[in-house]
């Protein structure tokens, strides 16, 4: 009897169309799909990456290579002293674990839901900064070898991070999701609604859940 039981799932699918005509038609991706990375910018165009190498440090696949440099005083690339001078991700090694996104102190690196790219040589699998950094509209650049269709625009969006106490002990151990930076703003998930801490700020870490002014 158990033999037939095993076919139960299959049998239930009879009559349903479960395949789609890929690549002409693409399914919507799950909300937290881990695709290829983007390097975000602030609204004024400054890069968020400060070249701190925490992403490279945390990467279990050792696929990220970052070098920092002094921001040129007359034409700063990012706010503050340091910017990401070199930024490379080797997609032959990347396992899309998103730890780099978690580690990033400035939310400079996030993962989009784009994943369809192929290469004809190994060198091309290394995305450099010029390819990873978002375009002026804040969305990822479409690179020639990436397969985008009209639905892909929404795949360029991505959630920020999974576990984020944001420096506040009030949320230690609480799983949180913070809002999306690149593409639209979705409501935060339930645990954060109660009292969302201010993001970790390099100058004044706010620990006050009531958000009183810093005087």
């Amino acid at each position: 009897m158990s033999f037939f039981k095993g076919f139960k799932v299959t049998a239930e699918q009879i009559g349903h169309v479960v395949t789609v005509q890929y690549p002409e038609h693409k399914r919507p991706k799950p909300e937290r799909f881990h695709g290829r990375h983007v390097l975000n910018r602030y609204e004024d165009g400054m890069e968020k990456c400060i070249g701190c190498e925490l992403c490279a440090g945390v990467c279990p696949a050792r696929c990220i290579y970052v070098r920092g440099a002094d921001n040129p005083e007359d034409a700063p690339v990012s706010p503050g002293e340091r910017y990401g001078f070199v930024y490379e991700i080797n997609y032959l090694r990347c396992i899309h674990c998103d730890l780099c996104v978690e580690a990033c102190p400035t939310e400079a690196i996030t993962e989009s839901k784009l994943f369809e790219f192929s290469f004809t040589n190994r060198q091309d699998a290394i995305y450099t900064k010029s390819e990873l950094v978002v375009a002026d509209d804040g969305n990822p650049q479409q690179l020639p070898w990436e397969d985008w269709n009209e639905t892909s625009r929404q795949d360029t969006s991505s959630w920020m991070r999974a576990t984020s106490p944001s420096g506040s002990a009030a949320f230690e151990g609480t799983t949180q999701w913070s809002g999306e930076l690149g593409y639209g703003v979705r409501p935060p998930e339930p645990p954060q609604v109660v009292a969302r801490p201010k993001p970790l700020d390099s100058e004044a870490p706010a620990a006050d859940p009531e958000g009183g002014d810093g005087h």
Partner: protein
Amino acid sequence: MATTVAPIVTAHIGTPDSHTLRGYLASGGYEALRKAVTTMTREEVQTEVDTANLLGRGGAGFPAGRKWSMLRKADPTYLVVNGDESEPATFKDHMLLEEDPHQIIEGTIITAYAIGAAQAFIYVRGEFALGIERMTQALNEAYGHGAAGNRIFGSDFSLDVVIHPGAGAYICGDETALLESLEGKRGFPRIKPPYFPAVMGLYGAPTIVNNVETMSNIPWIVVNGGAAFAALGEPQATGTRLFAVSGHVKKPGNYEVELAKNTFRDLIYDPRFGAGIRNGAELKAFIPGGASSFWFGPDRLDMALDETKVKGEGGSMMGSGSIIAMDSSTCMVRAAWRLVRFFSRESCGQCTPCREGSSWLDKIMYRIEAGDGRPDDLDLLMDVCDNISPGVQWPSRWPPNMTTICPLGPSIPPPIVSALGMFRDEFLTHIKDGACPYG
């Protein structure tokens, strides 16, 4: 009721030309020194001071004679006189320096004789410009009179005295900071061990540091004997002491009174002294011993002027001998904030708890006073105070614990802890109303 005794340190104040040699000689000046160097041995002078049980008048209240006896035997040794009076609302040394400089010099030279010092330095607070001028003039006159310099009054004893001006730093009132400053350095208090002045003081040599008022007592003790001094007051609090009374009293000023036989009430209310609270107002609280002491409410007015009692029963101190009366119109948050801000501005910056803690407390207090306080702030204030002076509490107890090199650290919490302890409601009103109820 207040006792009446002949003044000791202020005997010449108010006499004509008290700050000149002529005026000083007219009232028997330099006879003590003459007596000491020509008829007494060093040990005899020490014995008199020991008998007098003269407690140091700088704030710590350590017996001067005992201090002298702890001096490490070495050559050279130095005497340093602390005239860097900067404690808020303390102005007695200021008066002595300006009005009776010769008495200080005489006391200094006698002390140097007693302890065998090679040279004496009188460190005068820089802001006391007139005091420095009068002291310098007095010193010139003293040399001319044969009371200082080579072979004083024909004896074998010679001494060079230097008037050293400070330059504006409260912390230099701490004896080790004063020594650093006297060595021409930043006034950073020294770590103890190893820099106990009596062992390793000025230039690493054994050094006695005594307060100006202490020095001013010495000539009288030499002339009248230690026993006569000890007969005043009580055995644990002998002699008279100069108190600076200020704030909301009718007659602020310096008053010399017999210790232990008088009370705070005498100083504040006696018509000869403070003469009561002005404008007919009520006394709300008073600070018994300078900015770093825990405050007293009116219930402590009848406590005797006796360091042992003030520390033991009162949990505070007489410290620098300054009494600040605050009437019912006073915003206690503001008063406490101003004192904390003082410490924050005067912290030397060495120890983390004092440097960072004082400025943080200043910011919190300012915020509360300005109406931006938060409910958690009161606990925060207490905990930050506790991190500076572990175990600080209300009602207070003496002595406080320290996490810093010098006592400036534990001086920061008393105003806050006292104000919070006695007037918590005022803090809460500030926070609730978002403004100071006293305008």
